[in-house]
């Protein structure tokens, strides 16, 4: 590691590595600093249970493959990432042992929905086709470009008369919950429950006003869920490889203590061990807003003309985080689950992801209320069996499993630390809940298991404040140029040369690459880099 680079990026998650790789490809000298012992952030794959069992600790679902420009621009596949798009993508199993299945083939999905409602199957087909057709527009305006304001977007949709042209897309969605959208268009509660659950797994809670605006895009890519063969960490490794191939440097075990501000400009960083590194052009933070402003900046040394006391206070008190997190049970299995619902729909046994137990959106609403009140809901987890589509992720004849349950960061009044005592017990409850649907998952079938709680998320990755794996609330008030605050909504900060390029920014977390890709546009414009990746 030298003592100066053009660009210093804090955090080697997929956003930090993506930004670094693009800038390295643009001829800049790039240094990416990572606090942990390895790159990846949420792209972490570890042998949590037993040797040879690869568990994706955080990110498991890659839903923007071939939609996100970096996959092609940074030659992700050429660097060794192999994606598989499971034929049976997701299923919902209901308490009466019926099941709805989403396939990569939408016609088959419609056939499955039609077993519950032929009207809903026809509506779903229309919605999917329309949303899928609109994907270019939605990705081009809502994902892979720096954000427009809601006002601008509303005006454009109005001028183009989108509300009159589209059965589903309308400016009024910004005033609706996903529940309202589903009630308006669908009739069967089980179909609605599946779609609501799908939205929630993507981070979009079905009862939050305004989130209906993002729902058509979620439906438009409902059959685009991919699994990274050999674990999600392979993607992090590929991004690092691209960075390194173009002269970029990644340094791990390098904890940033502060961002050095010289006058009105970020001029470098100081590491926890005292090492100072100069950034000739810019510093980009991909960690949390709280870390960046409240930990890395010395408030006494940064002029209040530059970062006002008001902004510091807003960062302390007004950054919005998700009101729910995820509790995970990682399993090493000796056999694959066989669901009782297989009698109704045999393909559930081939489903990569299975949602258990919600038969109406109202049941999900009730659980949100509990969780937001720091209470644990009776588990209705979703179950991913990666080994169905990735035989490399477990020893021969064995399989991995992942149960995920929506959960609060804190438990009751005991705080997040209570998870250390509660996790094993709640994990057992999640497994018991699973067994009701797949009784063969007995003690013999489960070789070993371990938990990963919201508290663990925040401890392992402190940028996921309060276990917030989206790194900021998903709500209309925290979208587009308002995310994470209006003053920071366009990837720039009040400090010249200091940028925010992680999932705190528009659009949000998940493996989208979009915060980094959009920050890249702003940075390129500011420092005069040719935007080769934007060639049309």
């Amino acid at each position, binding site marked *: 590691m030298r003592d100066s680079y053009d660009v210093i990026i804090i955090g080697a998650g997929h956003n930090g590595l993506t930004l670094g790789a693009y800038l390295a490809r643009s001829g800049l000298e790039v240094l990416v600093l990572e606090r942990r012992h390895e790159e990846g952030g949420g792209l972490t794959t570890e042998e949590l249970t037993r040797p040879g069992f690869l568990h994706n600790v955080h990110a498991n679902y890659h839903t923007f493959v071939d939609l996100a420009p970096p996959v092609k621009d940074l030659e992700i596949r050429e660097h060794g990432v192999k994606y598989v798009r499971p034929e049976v993508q997701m299923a919902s199993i209901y308490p009466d042992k019926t099941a709805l299945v989403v396939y990569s083939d939408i016609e088959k999905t419609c056939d499955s929905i039609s077993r519950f409602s032929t009207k809903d199957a026809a509506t779903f087909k229309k919605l999917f086709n329309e949303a899928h057709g609109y994907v270019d527009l939605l990705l*081009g*305006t809502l994902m892979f*470009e720096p954000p*427009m304001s809601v006002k601008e977007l509303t005006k454009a949709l109005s001028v183009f*008369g989108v509300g009159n*042209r589209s059965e589903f897309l309308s400016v009024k969605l910004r005033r609706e919950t996903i529940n309202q959208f589903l009630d308006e268009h669908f009739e069967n509660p089980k179909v609605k429950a599946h779609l609501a659950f799908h939205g929630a797994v993507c981070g979009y809670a079905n009862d939050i006003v305004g989130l209906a605006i993002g729902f058509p895009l979620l439906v438009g890519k409902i059959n685009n869920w991919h699994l990274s063969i050999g674990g999600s960490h392979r993607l992090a490794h590929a991004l690092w490889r691209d960075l390194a191939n173009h002269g970029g440097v990644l340094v791990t075990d390098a904890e940033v203590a502060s961002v050095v501000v010289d006058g009105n400009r970020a001029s470098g960083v100081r590491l926890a061990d005292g090492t100072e590194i100069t950034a000739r052009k810019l510093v980009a933070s991909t960690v949390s807003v709280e870390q960046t402003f409240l930990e890395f900046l010395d408030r006494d040394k940064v002029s209040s003309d530059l970062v006002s006391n008001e902004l510091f206070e807003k960062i302390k008190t007004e950054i919005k985080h998700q009101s729910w997190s995820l509790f995970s049970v990682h399993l090493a299995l000796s056999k694959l689950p066989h669901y009782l619902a297989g009698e109704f729909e045999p393909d559930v046994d081939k489903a990569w992801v299975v949602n258990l137990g919600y038969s109406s959106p109202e049941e999900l609403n009730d659980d949100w209320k509990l969780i937001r009140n720091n209470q644990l809901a009776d588990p209705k987890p979703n179950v991913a069996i990666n080994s169905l589509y990735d035989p490399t992720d477990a020893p021969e004849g064995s399989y991995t499993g992942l149960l995920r349950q929506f959960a609060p960061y804190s438990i009751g009044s005991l705080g997040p630390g209570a998870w250390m005592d509660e996790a094993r017990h709640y994990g057992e409850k999640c497994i018991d809940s699973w067994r009701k649907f797949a009784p063969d998952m007995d003690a013999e079938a489960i070789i070993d298991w371990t938990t990963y709680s919201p508290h663990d998320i925040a401890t392992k990755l402190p940028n996921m404040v309060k276990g917030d794996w989206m790194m900021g609330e998903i709500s209309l008030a925290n979208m587009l140029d308002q995310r994470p605050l209006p003053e920071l909504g366009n990837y720039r900060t009040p400090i010249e040369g200091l940028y925010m390029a992680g999932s705190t920014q528009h659009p949000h977390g998940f493996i989208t690459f979009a915060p980094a890709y959009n920050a890249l546009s702003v940075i390129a414009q500011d420092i005069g880099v040719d935007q080769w990746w934007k060639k*049309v």
Partner: protein
Amino acid sequence: MADIYTPSWYEEVKAAINKKVSQLKDIPEGKWNLAIEIVGDGMSPYVEDNGERHFLVAIDNGSCLWYKEIASESDGSEIGKLDYRFRGSASVFDSIAAGVLDPIDAALDGSIKVRGDMRFLLRQADQVQALLEAYAKEVTTDWPKGKPPYGSSAGSNHVGEAVFYA
């Protein structure tokens, strides 16, 4: 009247756009280069099946400077750079020129793929709408090999012909 996809037709398109633009306020300043790629789909008699026709359009301060056909796909280097690329099947483009398909619908539903900064197009929605209307409604086109839906004999569509989208 001019035959579809002929130099005289491009001139008529250009004139129609410029007339429309001259009536607009708040025209964005600047130059934009557009590539239009029309792909034969076995339906349109004007583009060979699986063949492609390529056009470049230069816009300056909202007005069309020129509109020309080129031999093959362009990366824009011969004119500096490309700002937008529109690609779709021949029957879709024919139908827009014939006034039987709404160009906004075609762009929104993905029948025409748009590459370039979509935000700019949305921010200039009024101007884009006017420009597309000029293209679709204000040009009198001759269809020597038949017009969409192609079953009928050769003909023309005229300004005001009542076949436009609702």
